[in-house]
C-alpha cells in the first residue's frame, strides 16, 4: 500500500501514519476495529482539510472500518452560524461519499460505535477517546483530525502511546475529600492539575453519565487520554494492579472547597443555561427533563442531545411538556454553535468542557444549574 500499488492517495494516507508513528517510536502499524472522526464542522476556515478530503474522494476511497463522526456545529441556527459554517452541507456530503456513519455525536460509544475491551481504535474527539480508554477498556491515542481519517481509510494506526500496556497504568493518585460529588468540576480540576498523565481516582461509585461528563472536562482542561477509578473502571480492579506495583509519581488531594471554587458566585445572572457537552444521552435527558415539565423557566434553556436519542425523546409526553415550557432541544454541538455568535447571552453550564472552551461561560454544578432555572 505504501509503495502506491493501491494508488498514490492511499499511499500518502499511510505515509502520514508511518511518519506520525515514527515520531513516537512506533515499531509497526496495527489493524483497527473502528474509527471516530472529529472533523464534522463545515467551517469556512478549514480549507486545507477540504483539499485533503477531496483527494480521498477523487481517488474513490472509502472507510475500511466502521467510522462515526462528531456532532454538527449548529449551522442552521441563525444567519451568522449559516455563514461561518457555510461548508456544512458540502462536508456532510463528502463524509457520506467516504462511507462514514452519519451518527453526528461525540457520544458515539453509546450506540453506533461500541468497542470491546482490548480493541485497537483510531478515534479523535478527546472526550470519546477518554471514555473508550478509561471506561470501556479499548485502546486509542488522542488522534488528531485527518489522522483519524487516514486510519479509517487505511484500516491501520501506529502502535504507540495508549495502545501499549506500559503507558496505560496509573501515574498520579487522586485522593478525594468530597462530601457532595460534582463529577464535571472534579474532571476539570484533575485535568488542570494532572495535565497529561494517567490519574487514578480513589474509589467512588460514579454513574456512566458522571464518567462521561467528568472525562469530557478532564480532556478539555488537560490533555488526559485515560483515567482510572479504583474498583470501578476495567483496568483498575485495585490500586496495586493499576499502578503495576509501583508507587504513584505524585499524589494530589481534591477537596470540597476545590469543587466549590469553580462554581460561579452569581448563577442567577445567566441568560442561557446549556446542558449537554458531551451530548446528553436518552436516560440523562429523561432524568433532567423531569425538572422542567411543570413550569416555564425565566431562563433560556438548551438541551443538546445525541441525535438518535433526540428522535426517541421526541416521541415522549415529557418532550412535549418541556417544549411547551420553552426548553429548546437540539442535537448540535453547543460549543461551536455559541462560539461564532457575536453578542451572546450570558451562558451558565454544568459542563466542565463547555465551561473551558466557551469564552465568558460560567460554571455551576448540575444541581445548582437546575435550581437556577427553576427560580421564579
Amino acid at each position: 500500500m505504501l509503495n502506491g500499488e493501491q494508488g498514490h492517495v492511499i499511499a500518502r494516507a499511510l505515509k502520514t501514519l508511518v511518519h506520525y508513528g515514527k515520531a513516537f517510536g512506533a515499531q509497526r502499524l496495527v489493524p483497527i476495529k473502528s474509527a471516530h472522526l472529529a472533523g464534522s464542522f463545515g467551517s469556512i476556515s478549514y480549507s486545507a482539510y477540504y483539499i485533503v478530503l477531496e483527494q480521498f474522494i477523487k481517488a474513490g476511497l472509502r472507510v475500511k472500518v466502521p467510522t462515526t463522526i462528531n456532532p454538527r456545529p449548529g449551522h442552521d441556527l441563525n444567519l451568522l452560524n449559516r455563514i461561518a459554517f457555510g461548508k456544512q452541507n458540502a462536508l456532510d456530503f463528502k463524509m457520506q461519499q467516504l462511507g462514514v456513519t452519519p451518527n453526528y455525536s461525540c457520544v458515539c460509544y453509546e450506540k453506533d460505535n461500541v468497542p470491546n475491551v482490548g480493541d485497537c481504535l483510531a478515534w479523535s474527539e478527546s472526550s470519546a477517546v477518554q471514555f473508550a480508554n478509561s471506561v470501556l477498556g479499548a485502546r486509542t491515542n488522542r488522534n488528531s483530525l485527518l489522522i483519524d481519517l487516514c486510519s479509517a481509510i487505511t484500516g491501520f494506526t501506529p502502535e504507540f502511546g495508549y495502545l501499549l500496556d506500559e503507558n496505560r497504568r496509573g501515574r498520579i493518585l487522586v485522593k478525594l475529600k468530597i462530601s457532595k460529588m460534582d463529577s464535571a468540576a472534579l474532571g476539570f480540576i484533575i485535568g488542570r492539575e494532572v495535565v497529561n498523565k494517567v490519574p487514578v481516582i480513589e474509589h467512588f461509585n460514579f454513574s456512566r453519565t458522571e464518567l462521561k461528563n467528568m472525562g469530557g472536562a478532564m480532556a478539555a482542561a488537560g490533555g488526559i487520554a485515560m483515567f482510572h477509578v479504583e474498583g470501578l473502571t476495567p483496568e483498575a480492579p485495585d490500586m496495586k494492579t493499576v499502578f503495576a506495583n509501583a508507587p504513584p509519581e505524585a499524589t494530589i488531594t481534591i477537596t470540597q472547597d476545590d469543587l466549590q471554587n469553580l462554581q460561579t458566585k452569581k448563577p442567577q445572572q445567566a441568560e442561557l443555561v446549556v446542558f449537554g457537552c458531551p451530548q446528553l444521552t436518552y436516560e440523562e435527558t429523561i432524568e433532567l427533563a423531569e425538572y422542567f415539565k411543570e413550569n416555564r423557566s425565566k431562563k433560556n434553556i438548551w438541551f443538546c442531545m445525541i441525535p438518535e436519542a433526540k428522535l426517541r425523546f421526541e416521541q415522549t409526553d415529557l418532550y412535549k411538556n418541556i417544549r411547551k415550557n420553552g426548553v429548546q432541544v437540539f442535537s448540535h454541538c453547543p460549543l461551536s454553535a455559541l462560539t461564532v455568535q457575536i453578542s451572546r447571552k450570558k451562558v451558565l453550564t454544568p459542563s466542565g468542557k463547555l465551561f473551558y472552551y466557551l469564552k465568558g461561560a460560567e460554571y455551576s454544578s448540575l444541581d445548582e444549574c437546575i435550581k437556577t432555572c427553576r427560580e421564579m
Partner: protein
Amino acid sequence: MQKLTGDVVVKGVGSGQALVTQMPINFAAALAGVSSIIPGKRGVIQDRQHELFQKNIKGKVLVFPTCIGSTFTGMVLMQLMYKKEAPVAMIIQNSDSLLVAGVILAEVWFNCGIPVVEYRGKDLYDKILTGDTVEVNGDTGEIKIYRETTQ
C-alpha cells in the same frame, strides 16, 4: 551563543525570535474563532486563559511545555502552516500526538511542515527567553540561542 541538544520529533530547520511560555497551549481554543479566517490574524492567540493572549506566533520559534485539549489541534496547526502563518519551529518539553499530527499532516499533504524538537530538561526556560534569536535544527536536535546584549 548557547547550545542545547534535544530529541528530533519532526525534521527540518528553522530560525527566528523565541516566544516562550511555561503554560501548556490548547491550540484549538487558542486559534479558533472568527479571527481564524482573517489573513495576518490567524496566528494570534485568542485564548483568554493563556498568558500569550493576543500574541502572534507567526514566524516565531515557539517554546512551550505541551499541548492540551481538543483533537482539533492537528487541523488547526495544519491550516496555519498551509496559510503560512505558523511558527518557524517549535521546541516542546513533552511532545504530544496532536501537535505532531498537525506538523506531519502539513508536511505530507502540503509540503510545509516545520521542525519540532523535544527538550525535556528543566533548564529550558532559563536558557531560552522570549526575544532571543533561536536556530532549531530538526535534523540533529541542536538548538542554538543568540541573545542581544544591551550595551
